[in-house]
């Protein structure tokens, strides 16, 4: 019960942000929420099922491009275009996943990377259709208004994003706690054991891939609407790497950790890019820190804090062991 109350309060405080009237923060948070959702969806594939991917941006970008093309080229209504974008990206994932998930570890990583580059290359070179390096501008937001609040307003779109991402997070959470979700962790820990229990490991991995891709597609569409623009940067492997970093820093498999980290990284990146050119350097350092100091991610902090408190509280608390833990 306490958890539910806390979550509702959190949601409400997020919803109250537009009341501050600060458009910069509203915009920044909109994007942060989208990227949090992106990392969270990736966690289903990476953290829950144990399949590291460096090509997840593909499904984020393909949805954005699908939506953009539908609106700008074929004059389709933005709502329908959003559906088309998400559907297109999901179908690509559905076609690719059964083949790709037959690989594991580094080969899987490579094939996701190669597939991502393939898509990126296609989009960048096929300029006549996709706008090439310049991308596609002019993406109009869907129309939805409640009184004077519409999606065209930054705060209106923020609340819309908040609602969509909250629902996405809720659905991902339900999925993760379901028998399907539990079985994915089983597949991660011991696929031999899962096979012997009667599970089709291949089918489960495919499911995880597609679910993560659909989440990415949704976020990609939101992003396209937010920016009014989509470019090849949304398909870049570096964008995939950023999402993966969010998963690892947040704590693979914890879902909320990657969400917070994914959102936080975006805020950090925006701040740093505003100050210096050294974002790549800082990103690199963050990667190294994530692995060295925080292997379990942010999500492991409560557990480590708890263990630390136990050590401090114990009557025979050795100072040496406390230092070692730190």
């Amino acid at each position, binding site marked *: 019960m306490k958890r539910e109350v806390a979550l509702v309060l959190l949601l409400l405080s997020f919803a109250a942000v537009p009341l501050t009237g600060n458009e910069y923060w509203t915009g920044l948070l909109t994007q942060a929420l989208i990227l949090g959702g992106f990392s969270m969806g990736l966690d289903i594939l*990476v953290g829950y099922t144990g399949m*590291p991917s*460096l090509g997840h941006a593909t499904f984020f970008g393909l949805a954005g491009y699908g939506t953009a093309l539908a609106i700008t080229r074929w004059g389709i209504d933005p709502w329908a275009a959003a559906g088309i974008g998400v559907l297109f990206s999901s179908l690509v994932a559905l076609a690719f996943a059964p*083949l*790709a998930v*037959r*690989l*594991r*570890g*580094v*080969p899987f*990583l*490579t*094939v996701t*990377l*190669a*597939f991502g*580059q*393939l898509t*990126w*290359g*296609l989009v*960048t*070179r*096929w*300029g006549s259709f996709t706008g090439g390096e310049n991308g596609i501008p002019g993406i109009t937001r869907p129309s939805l208004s409640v009184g004077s609040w519409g999606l065209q307003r930054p705060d209106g779109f923020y609340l819309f994003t908040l609602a969509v991402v909250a629902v996405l997070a809720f659905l991902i959470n339900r999925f993760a706690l379901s028998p399907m979700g539990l079985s994915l962790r089983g597949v991660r820990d011991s696929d031999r054991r899962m096979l012997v229990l009667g599970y089709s490991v291949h089918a489960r991995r495919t499911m995880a891939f597609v679910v993560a891709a659909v989440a990415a597609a949704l976020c990609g569409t939101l992003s396209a609407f937010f920016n009014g623009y989509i470019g090849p940067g949304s398909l870049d*492997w570096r964008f995939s*790497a950023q999402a*993966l*970093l969010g998963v*690892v820093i947040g704590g*693979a498999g914890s879902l909320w950790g990657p969400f917070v980290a994914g959102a936080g990284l975006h805020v950090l990146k925006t701040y740093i890019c505003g100050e210096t050119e*050294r974002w*790549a*350097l800082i*990103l*690199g*350092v*963050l*990667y*190294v820190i*994530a*692995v*060295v100091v925080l*292997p379990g991610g942010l999500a492991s902090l409560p557990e480590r804090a708890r263990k630390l408190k136990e050590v401090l509280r114990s009557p025979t608390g050795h100072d040496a062991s406390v230092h070692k833990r730190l």
Partner: protein
Amino acid sequence: MRFLIFQVLNGLTTGALLFFLASGLTVVFGLMRILNLAHGALFLFGGYIGWSVQKITGNFLIAVVAGTIGAGLLGFILQQVFTRILLGRAFNQVLLTLGVAFILNNSILAIWGGVPRRIDPPTVLGHSVSLLGVTYPTYRLFLIGLALFAGLALLLLWERSRAGAVVRACVDDRPMAAAMGIRVDLVFVAVFTVGAALSGLAGVLGGPVLGLSIGLDFDVLLLAVVVMMVGGIGSVGGAFVASMLVGLLDTFGKAYFPELSYFTLFAPVVLILLVRPTGLLGRAIVE
């Protein structure tokens, strides 16, 4: 026809450079299970060192040696860092080596700036030669020949020499090799350092052909990883075949289908990976 020959030679040149780069990557991964994503940065680092040395001394050969040694040294340092930290988990490894790659990339940018550079080939190889009906730069032919020579040398070393046998033993069965008295930790250091040096060598040698620019490190890294997967992990012979294949695919794609060049390169790669996950000449990875 002349265009075709030209493209084939270009493809083989790219393949030559890729071979130097990928051979180190694949052996390191086969041996230590570390996918060194900083390998591309080593390439660029060696190249820039070579450029600086050439600027100072005006001598190509000294530049090559300097770049190779410089990259080897950096590789040695990285190897020490990686083995202390990594415990074999796939994505931690990805992040650590990738993080180091980003740090190196940015450091190179900080030291040498963002202006693309070019290394001059040695004057003796600076001309063109008539071959198979085309006029082709001598230097590029030299690269192809060098790669062939190096490929044969490495293969012979791998298959026939005692050093090669030691490394192969460590790849096949590390605990057994250690039990037989082989200093596995030293083998790791040696292989990683040599791989890094080869990478730097490729960087300098590639200077006249590819130039030096920020971002090149990740471009070549991607190709090298692809070569490794296609050729088969831990296989030097596979790396050779795959390097040439990828070099040709890349060149032909850019020449004949410029609009789809990435596609023409990566689509076959994806297909090969899906059909033969262990690569063309590789063995199954025992997880």
